[in-house]
């Protein structure tokens, strides 16, 4: 059993060095109200390639700022932290940024984001380089 675990661990830790092929879909951000300067954006990043990749950073249009964050909950207490080291995107896996989990935290919004608006985010990947993503603003009911 231990040997199997070890083998699995080795296999899991061995990263795939082929070419990643990223498809980004369902990008949306929660609308805001006047006075609210922060929101979160979510999306699915599907890596259909043969190599792993990593989302290194996210930028919003100034003066707004974007950061990769993760919300965690344990013992009924939720915590939000900056994601150190970026978000790993294993080959053949669709990684979801979703409410209550990994998300892009956007701060410094000067005007409310209204449903129907589209916001641009600039994502930078370790291997796939920069990508611009159109994020549609929507209501919070998802």
């Amino acid at each position, binding site marked *: 059993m231990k040997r199997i675990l070890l083998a699995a661990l080795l296999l899991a830790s061995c990263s795939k060095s082929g070419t990643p092929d990223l498809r980004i879909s369902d990008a949306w951000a*929660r*609308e*805001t*109200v*006047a*006075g*609210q*300067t*922060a*929101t*979160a954006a979510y999306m699915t990043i599907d890596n259909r390639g043969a190599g792993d990749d990593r989302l290194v950073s996210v930028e919003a249009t100034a003066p707004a*700022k974007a*950061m990769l*964050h993760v*919300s965690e*909950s344990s*013992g*009924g*207490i*939720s*915590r*939000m*932290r*900056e994601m150190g080291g970026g978000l790993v995107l294993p080959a053949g896996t669709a990684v979801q940024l979703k*409410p*209550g989990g990994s*998300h892009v*935290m*956007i*701060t410094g919004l000067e005007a409310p984001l209204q449903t129907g608006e589209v916001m641009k985010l600039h994502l930078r990947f370790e291997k796939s380089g920069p990508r611009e993503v159109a994020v549609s603003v929507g*209501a*919070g*009911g*998802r």
Partner: protein
Amino acid sequence: MQRVRIVLWAAVAIALAAFAFLMLRPVQETPTRQQPLAISSIGGPFTLTGSDGKPFSSASLAGKPYAIFFGFTHCPDVCPTTLARMVRLRQLLGAGDRPFEILFVSVDPERDGSTEVGKYAELFKSPVTGLTGSPAQIEQVKRQYGIFSRKVPDSSGGYSVDHTSTVLLFDRKGDFSGTIASEEKDNAALAKLKRITA
């Protein structure tokens, strides 16, 4: 004699190592280590400030079941997700327009004034009562409801707040009935909401 001395020094070294280990090991954070609350005593009367800047007394909840959630308006993920879910569950429950009240209490009164909590509550396009108060009032209500919160500095010079994100449910008589956790399935949550609105 030489031998005894070596043994004694070895004992001292072991004691020092043990001491160092005890001193240096990371202290386990136990945010949940609060005064244990007896179930029956959760809740109770309070006065806070409503979004209109006027005092909001829990007396106005008499006869109404309610769900109460503690958060902060700079919280972009967990808080709106939880409140939007409560609104969605309330719609799913049917049973009239407003079978129960949804209360949002700020655990960040330093940044959240009545205007902020009021605006934030409007996000959900369904009645949500946003409440804040003086830091002392908030501390008191947190104690009554067994809520933990702690400010955590972030890299941009601001701070985030770790906080209890469990929703607490109270029935028409104002008695504590149960909780809804974020990871709980809708069916289980709806069953609990049916109980308080019965």
